[in-house]
């Protein structure tokens, strides 16, 4: 009971605020690597949101989604880092 209340009224709003802040950095970030870092943060924040939803909805299967999501976001960050390194001005 108290867990559901806290998760819904405290934890999810905090994570949403964090998502908004990370999105501001994604929008203003002066260079591409800044945006990649913001994107990485957004990805892991979403994994956190999924974990909180797993607690709220009593579905432990949702948590598998979070772990796969974390793995895929790591792979995409590696790919973008490779691209940044290759796409430099000659």
């Amino acid at each position, binding site marked *: 009971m108290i867990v559901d209340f806290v998760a819904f009224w405290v934890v999810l709003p905090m994570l949403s605020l964090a998502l908004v*802040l990370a999105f501001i950095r994604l929008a203003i970030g002066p260079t591409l690597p800044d945006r990649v870092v913001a994107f990485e943060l957004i990805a892991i924040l979403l994994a956190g949101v999924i974990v909180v939803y797993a607690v709220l909805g009593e579905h432990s299967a949702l948590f598998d989604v979070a772990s796969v999501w974390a793995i895929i976001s790591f792979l995409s*960050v590696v790919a973008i880092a490779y691209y940044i390194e290759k796409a430099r001005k000659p």
Partner: protein
Amino acid sequence: MMEILIAALLILGASFMLIAAIGILKMPDLYMRMSVNTKSVTLGMGFLLLALVLHFHEIGVASRALATLVFIAMTAPISSHLIGRAAYLSGVELWSETRRDELGDLYQRRPMSMEQVLFSENPPHSMDLEQEEKDTEDNF
């Protein structure tokens, strides 16, 4: 009692994540943003997963949570190392108050191809490797 502990862990994890988000907005340059992020996010995720394990109280969930946490703790430094290196090579500026840049001695901070940088110090293989890299680069 258990419920209060779980709620506290959830709040703790979420606040570390929120602090990482504030940090990414506030820190003056990319490198500091990354070094703030990696730590806070990993710790925050650790607390959230601990809360999840205590909530479900199953061995399967616990082992999967441990595997996920180990995976995140292993990959977070790798990806920030990759981005940091790529950013440095592509010339992202350091904060104006940075005191010393000893990596500049290695790269001299001018546009230079990756292959030149990497293979300039071992002459025996440098020529053919450089050629090979150029070939693949052209195909790419």
